[in-house]
């Protein structure tokens, strides 16, 4: 019952956050110079005052701000994000077309980073002065310092050009007709480099965090208790220490989800990965505001959902805050 109430509470809070994003979108559009009609007229190369007035009325821009906000919220809640200026199709459909690719990239990179980072951190924590530990330190420093797009480009030069192991761009080989397993393998091949690129930053962050947290946990009283029971080192580390040591990593992962998605935007443009990041990049070049605002909303939605998931997994891992 308590779990249910907490869950309900978090869900309501998430909905409020999303509402706030909708309001923010509205505010931004209104404080920005010009409005939708100005932009349209710019595209048409000028218009008569009568036409301008008619367009404004059509778009509801002659209403009071409050009425406009009200309409705006209602439209967005019904899933109506307007028409894309450039594609002339509903923003929602465009985004839903591109969303799966982004989700695939982000989740792959996320789990790759979480698993690799944690494993590296554990190994390094067990022997803090060893070579492995130093390698982890260097790796995490470099992973953090290298700009993500540059990492991607360097991987392209090495693994797509010098050693042509992986395709350089896109998500499918053009003209590829295979189905089933073949198609999956084709996508996976395209996924390798972008996923590693996106994960590199977070492998750095998580391995460093996991190392610190495991060092801390391994020195704690309950680990000594576990050892005093005669449990083997392996059981002590991978059962007793890991479940505690991973908690800060999960917290951090939740906090950084928005940055992960932001990173995906950059990675997608480097590898021409057909997700919402690439869509956003093209939208900004063409000043397609409705599309861009829609993407901001959907990506925030992803972050909010991911946070809900992290939150509940944290509750499963740590009984103290259940």
């Amino acid at each position, binding site marked *: 019952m308590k779990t249910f109430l907490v869950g309900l509470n978090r869900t309501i809070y998430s909905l409020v956050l999303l509402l706030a994003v909708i309001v923010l979108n509205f505010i931004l559009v209104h404080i920005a110079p010009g409005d939708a009609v100005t932009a349209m007229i710019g595209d048409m190369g000028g218009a008569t005052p009568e036409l301008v007035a008619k367009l404004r009325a059509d778009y509801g821009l002659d209403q009071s701000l409050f009425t406009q906000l009200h309409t705006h919220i209602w439209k967005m809640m019904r899933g109506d994000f307007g028409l894309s200026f450039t594609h002339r199709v509903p923003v929602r459909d465009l985004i839903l077309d591109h969303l799966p690719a982004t989700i695939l990239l982000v989740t792959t990179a996320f789990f790759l980073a979480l698993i690799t980072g944690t494993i590296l951190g554990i190994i390094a924590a067990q022997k803090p002065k060893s070579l492995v530990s130093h390698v982890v330190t260097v790796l995490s420093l470099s992973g953090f310092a290298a700009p993500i797009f540059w990492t991607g*480009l360097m991987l392209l030069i090495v693994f797509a*050009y010098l050693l042509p192991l992986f395709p350089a761009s896109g998500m499918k080989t053009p003209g590829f007709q295979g189905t089933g397993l073949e198609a999956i393998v084709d996508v996976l091949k395209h996924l390798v480099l972008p996923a590693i690129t996106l994960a590199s930053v977070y492998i750095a962050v998580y391995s460093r965090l996991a190392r610190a947290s495991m060092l801390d946990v391994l020195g704690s009283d309950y680990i000594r208790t576990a050892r005093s029971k005669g449990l083997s080192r392996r059981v002590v580390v991978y059962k007793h220490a890991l479940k505690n040591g991973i908690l800060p990593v999960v917290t951090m992962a939740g906090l950084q989800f928005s940055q992960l998605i932001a990173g995906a935007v950059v990675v997608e443009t480097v590898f021409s990965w057909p997700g919402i990041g690439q869509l956003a*990049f093209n939208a900004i070049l063409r000043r397609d505001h409705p599309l*861009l605002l829609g993407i*901001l909303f959907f990506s*925030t939605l992803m972050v909010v959902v991911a946070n809900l998931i992290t939150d509940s997994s944290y509750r499963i891992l740590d009984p103290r805050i259940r």
Partner: protein
Amino acid sequence: MSNREKTDAAVRPDRPLAELWHMFFANKAAVLGLVLWLLVITTAVFGLTIHPGDPFAMVGAPMTPPGEEFLLGTDYLGRDVLTGIIHGASVTLAIGFSATVCTAIIGVTIGVLAGYYGRWVDNLLMRVTEFFQVLPPMLFVMVLISLFTPSIYLIVLAIAVVSWTGMARLARAEFLKIKEMEYVKAERAMGARNASIMAKVILPNALPPLIVAIALNVGTAILFEAALSFLGLGDPNAFSWGYMIGSSREYIWDSWWTITFPGFAIFLTVLGVSLVGDGLNDALNPKLREL
């Protein structure tokens, strides 16, 4: 364990500034970071006197590989990569530092108010912080840039707007902790005003972790600016490292050097920041050492 505490206390009398310097300089990685930093700053300040030139100017044949004529080669427009890197150093530093100053001002102010006043102020400000935390930074900045006219000021401000949340949380946590200390209560009992307690009593004690966070933020800001310029969303008049990579990426197969070298410059700069930040962290917060 009790032994370790004792020895720790023995080597740590009152930790004056000299002690701090000593600890910082005993840390090889931190010194390496500092050297990298001095290198970048020297390049930014003196680079153009040693190797003068307009980064936008065509000086040679397009895509000349690195060699005698051009140490780091030229790009697809025949612009000298080395000149570009030297020029980019000052752009990068300027944006990195000013964005960090803005970030620190926003973050510390919000964190301090939330931590000191608590109750509804804290509640409100933390909800705002959480709201900013769920917005994907790059996308939010893209929206800001597309809605307003891009300029170097907008970029600096935009970077700050998406980066302050961590600093606010840190400042809040420190203030929450310190305001319960006896010496703060004593000040309050003696009738000191809130503003004076915040600025003169708590802030100095909360500084060590904040200084580290601010130092590390320079790195994040530089990376952010680089990514923006790479995407072509930076100030078109600023010849930054990210811009160099972004403008040449179509030619990645023909001239690897135009991408590799500016990226390496960013890498070394940010690495320097991290190393210095870690070194400061070790020297200022000795309890966290070994982490």
